[in-house]
């Protein structure tokens, strides 16, 4: 049913299936929508990965080589090191939330559309 409706909506688009009825991977890969989707995903993943790795390694290097700075008191007995450590927790949660939102809004609908055109039921 869903196939029919999408066909009716976009008659100029052919199904992405080969003669045997299997998904036509070469055709899908060449599709501008797929290329854009793949690029968008790769860009987000690469930027987020590099960012969190650099941030984590900065923290690690500070912990190893700048112990006095890490021991500076901010308030009470709470030190810079403790706050930076907790900020690693915060940044992890932040990246996780951002990625989930990005995936839900920008990836999942596109993936669903491609799957439908390739004759695969929505997950």
């Amino acid at each position: 049913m869903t196939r029919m409706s999408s066909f009716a909506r976009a008659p100029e688009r052919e199904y992405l299936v080969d003669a045997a009825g299997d998904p036509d991977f070469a055709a899908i890969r060449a599709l501008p929508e797929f290329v854009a989707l793949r690029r968008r995903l790769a860009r987000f993943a690469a930027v987020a990965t590099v960012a969190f790795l650099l941030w984590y390694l900065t923290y690690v290097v500070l912990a190893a080589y700048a112990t006095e700075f890490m021991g500076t008191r901010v308030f009470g007995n709470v030190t810079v090191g403790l706050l930076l450590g907790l900020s690693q927790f915060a940044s992890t949660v932040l990246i996780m939330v951002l990625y989930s939102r990005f995936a839900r809004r920008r990836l999942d609908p596109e993936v669903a559309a491609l799957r439908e055109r390739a004759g695969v039921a929505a997950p």
Partner: protein
Amino acid sequence: MNGDPLLNSAIFGVVVVATLFMVYRVSGNSTTADYYAAGGGFSGGQNGLALSGDYLSAASFLGIAGAIAVQGYDGFLYSIGFLVAWLIPLLLLAERVRNVGRFTMGDVLSFRMRQRPVRAAAANATLVISAFYLLAQMAGAGVLVALLLDVRSTGGQALVIVGVGAIMILYVLIGGMRGTTWVQIIKAGLLLVCVLMLSVFILGRFGFSMSNLLDRAARNNPLGEAVFSPGARYGESGTSKLDFVSLALALVLGAGALPHVLMRFYTVPDARQARRSVVSAIWAMVLFYLATLVIGYGAGAIVGSRAIQDAPGAENSAVPLLAFEVGGPVLLALVAAVAFTTILAVVAGLTLTASASFAHDVYANVIKRGAPEPGAEMRVARVTAVVIGCLAILGGILALGQNVASLVALAFALAASANLPTILYTLFWRRFNTAGSLASIYGGLGSCLLLIVFSPVFSGTSTSIVEDVDFHLFPLSNPGIVSIPLSFLLGFLGTIFSKERSDVTRSEQLEVRSVTGIGA
């Protein structure tokens, strides 16, 4: 410690009987898809809890809190590495691994390569990494037993390791992935409730002021206020600092490449649920590692670091001592039971992964070339689980009393060296080929193992596995900083120096499939 071994054993017995009964009820292992991946029938939330259950070993629970109690801030560095590491599976691996493979890491690595050599390599890496991890857990079980059940003789501890191994084999044989996953879920739930209750209780004692808690922790520690900043453990010399950076690198890059973590992504129906698994797992671990910070400093403040170091089991005894101090023998017994369930669940997960890799990659695809007789693969998987279980028991007994705490960190270094570069290249570099795969798996695995053998972990210091002979040539106890980049380099060189062209059809298929799940 004045815990009651009888009470501890009774509560532990109840937990074992209850989980075994549950494993029996949910089991249903007629097919390989059931046995390896629970038919893909878990939800993201359930699998997320199970992931954290697989990941939070007794080393995390007892080891990190103990390290914070005794060494202060340096113990906390572990927590951060273990947690931050989960962004790699979230951003790069979970969804793609789910989309591309079916049961094992070998499925992904061999997807567009020559099947037999790459599958064999993936299985070798899986078996070595799981063996390291398994050995650490089994030997840890011995130490825990000494501590909690007051079994002090070596014979008695060996007997308990046999018991732990036997229960673990039962979980795997009866329950397969479905039963094992439920054990992980229950264990993770128990563990989270336990640490959260403990930390609220501790904070309550100090008027919910972290600063007061820290103040007392410093006063009860000979290191004094040095416990508020890094350096107590790793700050000694240039080598120890570099060793710490190497460890941190291995932790952050290794977690997502652990075979038993990767295999968890197949127990959910699709990539979206795999993503949700990681998200729930991260939430659970944020709570857990925040709690270890409070519990660690709390143990230092309430029990005192000297009393912890004098207790049998030293750092590992911090949490049990603390539990006894704040909640008497009953709370101690509960903590003991949670720690035992933790070990049981983790070793069951590891055994299942190793047996799946052998049966699915080596037996079905390398030996039988992808066409095993019906039912044979399952039989092989079950026999392998028993064999691995027995080897783990034996290894655990031999490793009793050895310094095995760092074995877990070494398993991370091995995973980051042998698996991560190969997985990333397979997924993201079109030209990557069989020669490159083999170079990076065997190069990473081999260099990492070699550096371990010639490291101070193995020989030359009072805490080494071989104390009397000194053949350590490599100064760092964690080889990650050398072997991880080396493996990336070898994968690259292996690819560009081989004439082999990558399989275009399979590459296209992999690209489409990893992003969309079409064809999975």
